[in-house]
């Protein structure tokens, strides 16, 4: 490699670092603004929306891009939530001993806990994915549902983690409320960017090829099984991060927070936005958070309407808001109806 191209590379990385600093600053600023102006109810919706975005974009990788339909992702979210809560609780005193009590130890504990949550959820995804991803279509859907339920039943019986009453750490006040705007949206930004990069790469194209025609993909030497397991694992790990964020939003987590309905919520998010579209998943995640919270006033009618909404979407616009397209291409179409698309 010549020194000229090494220089180009350095400039590139410097530019990126500057951009990253800018993004972090913007998220921090928005977070401060929100926390100083908005009422708690709105803050909660905003946090849930961010967590939903992470869930939706992660699920979209396997359900949308790869076309392998999982309806049991609440299980992986649960694994991430429990792992993050448990290891966060155990790591915190140790990190305080190392760094002294304060924001620094808290932030480090939290982010390490999230990474551990992702790791455990990803491992669970790997274990579930290897045997099941040979199955196709609706069978796979039902098996993921089964695994999701098994995971919940295991937590329901795990006495070390509080069994059915749930886990709330060692402190009687419950889990620390680490989750705030800054961390949720920083993680959301990182994960959405990372998953978008993955999707628009050779690997992402191969995943789409598997969705479109698995037999042809095999004939093109694409390692279909390995890629499916990879997508499933990454998707499960992403749900794990969301689980960790979710756990530290409240004082404790219970197995019933991760019931089948939660998996369906995730499916609704990616369906609303359009299966296979990252922009769609982002919009769908926000949509579900806002809809469910706003409809809370309707109390017992809420879930009836929500179910009805899902049915109507499937009957009227099964491809969702965006179809499989991304936002830029949708905007381009809106501007000039006959312009050519490019990737």
């Amino acid at each position, binding site marked *: 490699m010549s020194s000229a191209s090494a220089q180009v590379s350095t400039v590139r990385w410097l530019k990126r670092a500057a951009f990253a600093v800018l993004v972090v600053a913007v998220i921090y600023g928005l977070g401060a603004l929100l926390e100083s102006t908005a009422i708690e109810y709105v803050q909660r919706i905003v946090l849930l929306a961010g967590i939903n975005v992470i869930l939706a974009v992660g699920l979209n990788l396997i359900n949308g891009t790869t076309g392998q*339909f999982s*309806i049991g992702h609440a299980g992986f979210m649960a694994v991430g939530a429990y792992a993050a809560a448990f290891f966060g609780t155990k790591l915190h005193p140790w990190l305080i001993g190392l760094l002294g009590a304060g924001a620094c130890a808290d932030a480090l504990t939290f982010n390490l806990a999230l990474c551990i949550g992702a790791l455990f959820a990803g491992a669970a995804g790997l274990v579930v994915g290897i*045997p*099941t991803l*040979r*199955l196709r*279509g*609706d*069978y796979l*859907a*039902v*098996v993921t*549902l*089964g*695994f999701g*339920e*098994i995971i919940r*039943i*295991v937590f*329901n*019986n795990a006495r070390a983690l509080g069994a059915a009453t749930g886990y709330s750490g060692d402190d009687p006040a419950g889990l620390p409320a680490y989750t705030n705007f800054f961390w949720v949206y920083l993680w959301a930004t990182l994960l959405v960017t990372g998953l978008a990069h993955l999707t628009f790469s050779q690997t992402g194209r191969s995943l789409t090829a598997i969705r479109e025609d698995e*037999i042809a993909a095999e004939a093109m030497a694409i390692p279909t099984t390995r890629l499916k397991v990879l997508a499933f694992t990454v998707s499960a790990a992403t749900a794990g991060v969301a689980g960790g964020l979710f756990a530290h939003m409240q004082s404790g987590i219970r197995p019933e927070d991760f019931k*089948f*309905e939660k998996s*369906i919520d995730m*499916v609704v998010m990616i*369906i609303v936005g359009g*299966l296979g579209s990252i922009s769609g998943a982002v919009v769908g995640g926000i949509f579900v958070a806002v809809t469910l919270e706003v409809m809370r006033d309707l109390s*017992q*009618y809420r*879930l*009836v309407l*929500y*179910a*009805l909404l*899902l*049915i109507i979407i*499937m*009957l009227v616009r*099964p491809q969702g808001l965006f179809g499989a397209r991304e936002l830029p291409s949708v905007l381009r179409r809106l501007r000039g109806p006959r312009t050519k698309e490019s990737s």
Partner: protein
Amino acid sequence: MTEFIQQVINGLSLGSIYALIALGYTMVYGILRLINFAHGEVFMVGAYAGYYAASAFGIDAYERGGRAFPLVLAVAVLLLAMAAAAALGTTIELLAYRPVRKAPRLTPLITAIGVSLFLQNAGMLVFGPNPRRYPPILKEVPFEIGGVIVTNIKVTIFVVALALMTALRFFVLGTWTGRAMRAVSIHPDAARLMGIDVDRTIRACFAIGSALAAAGGILFGLDQIMINPLMGVLTGLKAFVAAVLGGIGSIPGAVLGGVLIGLAEQLTAGYLSPDYRDAITFVILILVLMLKPEGLLGVVKQEKV
């Protein structure tokens, strides 16, 4: 040994209920390739229909007076519940599934999940979220055979389920509509060309499957005493697993699968831990799909290249 036989008897009666529900899953899957997630809720509504029918026939008065509910009325309750469920099943098919019949397979699947959620929550609204005690349509009479306690209810469940399944078998093999069902499940387009009214055949499938589920619902109420609007979720899933275990699309398979799941569940609860009685079903499901995805009595299908 007697305890084992006791568990087997309980498992058989529970399994017959699963088998009745599994038939609906397998018939609809066989004909539409759709996992009808709402079928568990049809089962639930069937149980409630029986509950209200029995109330309308004045079962409270009989119970207060210490008299047994007349058998004629009990049969009427069963038939009314079956009719109500058939009406519900065909309505779901007409409003929710027919419009998406030609869509990619995930669209009807998600629609079915939506219908299922809708019925669960509508059930909470209409029937109330609290569990209800099922009226004693049949007065429980326990008797003992060689140290094993059997009740007339367990025997009735087994007999009613067996009778309905035998009737279904004769219907599918012996009648014109039954033949049409088999034809449509093999090749819908060819069946249409041969003059079979495909829409009507699919409707018949939903009607029969739903009626059987309602019968299962009443038997479930008799057996388990309590019913609630979410009872269809887990029971429905177990019945679906039964259908997959037997080989989805296969009617004898659904019966076999139902009985095996019922047995597995009772034996797990009895000998392992009651905490895992629900998990065992999913373990079985996963094992079946990994080892023999076509099920015990199913047929292997390979995609053409």
